C-alpha cells in the first residue's frame, strides 16, 4: 500500500469525527443563527423561516443579553487577574529554594483542578450557606454580620469568582512553575551581586522572562472564563435576580429550555466573535509592548 493511502487511512477516523461532529455543526450554527428555528420547526421543518440577521438584531435589543454579557465580562475581568495572580504567587512559593515538601504542596494545590465542577460547586454552596455556612461562621467570630453570599445580587458573582479561582489556580500554577524553572539562575545571581531587592528582581527578571508564558496562560484563561456555565447553573441557577446569568447560561436557556435554537445560535456566535476579538486584542497589545 502506498504511504499516501496509509496516511489518509490513519487520519480518517479522527477527521471524520471532527468534520461531522464539530466543523459541520459550527458551519450549521452560522446558518441556524439566520433562521427562526424554534419548537415549531423542531416538530416540522417546514415551519422554518429565514430571518437573516433578525436574531442578532433582536438580541442586541434585549436587556438580558447585555446583562448576561456584563456578568460574563465582570467574571472575566475580575476572575482572570485574580486567578493568574494566585497561580503565579503559588508557583513562586513552590519554586523557592527555601520551600520544603514540594511534591506534597504541589499535589495539594493542584487537587481542586481535577475535581468535578458540579461536586465542588455543591461543596461551596454549603460553605457559603447564609445560616450554617462556615464562611459566615468565621465572619461572625470577628463580629461581622452574616452575608447572604449566593442570595444577594451583589455578592453572588464575587462568590462564584472566589470559587473559580480556588478551583482553577493550580492549573496555571504548574505552567508558571515550569516557566520559572526555565529562567537561568545566574540572572538572579548577577542581580543580587548588584544589590537588587527581591521586588526589583521580580520586576526586571521574573516578569520579563515569564512574558511568553504569561501571554499564553492569559489567552487560555480568558477564553476558558468566557465559557462560564456550570458554576452558576449549580450554585445559583442564574439568580438571584438573574445576576449570575452568563452568556452561555443564556444560550442554554434560550436553546434547551425555550427551544429557540436559532436565537441561541446567534448568542453562541456573538460569544465566539467577542472571544476572538479579545484574543486578537491581547496579542496585539503584547506585540506593541515588545516594540517599546
Amino acid at each position, binding site marked *: 500500500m502506498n504511504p499516501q493511502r496509509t496516511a489518509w487511512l490513519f487520519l480518517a477516523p479522527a477527521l471524520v469525527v471532527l468534520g461531522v461532529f464539530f466543523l459541520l455543526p459550527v458551519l450549521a450554527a452560522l446558518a*441556524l443563527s439566520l433562521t427562526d428555528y424554534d419548537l415549531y420547526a423542531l416538530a416540522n421543518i417546514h415551519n422554518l423561516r429565514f430571518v437573516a440577521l433578525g436574531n442578532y438584531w433582536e438580541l442586541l435589543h434585549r436587556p438580558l443579553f447585555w446583562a448576561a454579557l456584563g456578568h460574563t465580562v465582570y467574571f472575566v475581568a475580575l476572575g482572570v487577574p485574580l486567578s493568574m495572580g494566585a497561580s503565579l504567587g503559588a508557583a513562586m512559593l513552590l519554586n523557592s529554594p527555601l520551600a520544603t515538601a514540594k511534591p506534597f504542596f504541589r499535589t495539594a494545590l493542584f*487537587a481542586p483542578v481535577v475535581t*468535578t465542577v458540579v461536586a465542588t460547586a455543591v461543596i461551596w454552596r454549603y460553605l457559603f*450557606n447564609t445560616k*450554617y455556612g462556615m464562611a459566615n461562621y468565621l465572619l461572625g467570630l470577628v463580629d461581622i454580620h452574616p452575608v447572604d453570599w449566593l442570595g444577594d445580587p451583589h455578592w453572588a458573582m464575587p462568590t462564584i469568582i472566589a470559587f473559580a479561582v*480556588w478551583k482553577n489556580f493550580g492549573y496555571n500554577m504548574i505552567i508558571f512553575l515550569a516557566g520559572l524553572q526555565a529562567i537561568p539562575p545566574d540572572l538572579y545571581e548577577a542581580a543580587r551581586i548588584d544589590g537588587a531587592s527581591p521586588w526589583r528582581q521580580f520586576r526586571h527578571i521574573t516578569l520579563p522572562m515569564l512574558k511568553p508564558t504569561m501571554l499564553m496562560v492569559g489567552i487560555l484563561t480568558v477564553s476558558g472564563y468566557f465559557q462560564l456555565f456550570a458554576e452558576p447553573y449549580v450554585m445559583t441557577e442564574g439568580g438571584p435576580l438573574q445576576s449570575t446569568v452568563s452568556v*452561555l447560561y443564556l444560550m442554554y436557556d434560550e436553546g434547551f429550555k425555550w427551544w429557540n435554537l436559532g436565537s441561541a445560535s446567534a448568542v453562541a456566535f456573538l*460569544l465566539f466573535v467577542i472571544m476572538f476579538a479579545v484574543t486578537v486584542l491581547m496579542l496585539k497589545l503584547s506585540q506593541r509592548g515588545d516594540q517599546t
Partner: protein
Amino acid sequence: MSPRLAKALINGLLIGVAAVALFPLLWMLSVSFMAPGAASTLPPPLLPRHASWDNYRELFVHAGMGRYLINSLLVAGAITVLSVVFNLLAGYAFAKLRFAGRERLFQALLGALVIPAQVAMLPLFLLLKYMGLVNSYAGVVVPALATVFGIFLVRQYARGIPDELLEAARIDGASESRIFVQIVLPLLKPIVVTLAIFTFLAAWNDFMWPLIVLTGQEHYTLPIGLASLAREHSQDSELMMAGSVVTVLPVLLLFLSMQRYYLEGLLLGSVKG
C-alpha cells in the same frame, strides 16, 4: 530578612494555601459521614459525632447513584479507549507519514481550536436527534471521539521518533500497520498513558454536553445526577456531600496515582510548537 525567617514565612504561606485548597475537600468527606441535619448547626461541626455510612446507603439505594456511577464509568471509559486510538493514529500520521497538504491540514485543525465547543452544540443536538442518538450513551460518546488537542499532543511526541527506524522497517518489508503496532506504539507508550488520563478526567468531569444530550434519568452521568439531586434536596447537606465524594473520589484517586504523567502532559500540551 534572615534566611530562617524567610524560610518560615514561605513554608507558612504554603501551608496556608494548601489548607485553603484542601479544606473544602476534607470537609466534604467529613460531612458526608454525618447524620442528617447534623451539619446544619452552629458552630459548624468539623467531625461527625457518630460517623455512619447512612448517606451513602441512601444515595445508592434510593437516589440511583449506583446507576449514575456505572453510566459515568461506561461513558468515560468508552470515550477514553476510542478517542485515544483515533487521536494516536491521526497524530502519528501528522508527525511521520508524508502526504500532500499535511502542514496545511494541521494548521487548519489548530486554527479550529479558537472556536469554543459550545458554538457547535445546538446543531450537534439537532444532528444527533435526527440520528436518533439523543438520550443515549452514544450521544455523549460520539462527539468526543477525536480532539484537536489529543492529535496535537501525539504529534508533538511522535516527532521524536527517528525516521531511520521507520525507514529500516519499511526496507525490511514491514507493512505500515505492522510498523505502527510493533515499533511506534511501544515508543508512544508514555504519551498513550498521559492522553488516556487526560481524556478520562475530562470525560468524567464534563457537564454541559451530557446535560444537553441526556434527557432521561436512566442515562445520567454523575455530574448530571448530582446537579439534579442538588436541585431537589438542596437542604440535605450531608447527602449532597456524600454525592460529591462519590463524584470526585474516582478522579482524585486516578490523579494521585498517575500525577507524574498528568502533569507532564499538561506541560507538553501547553507549549505550542
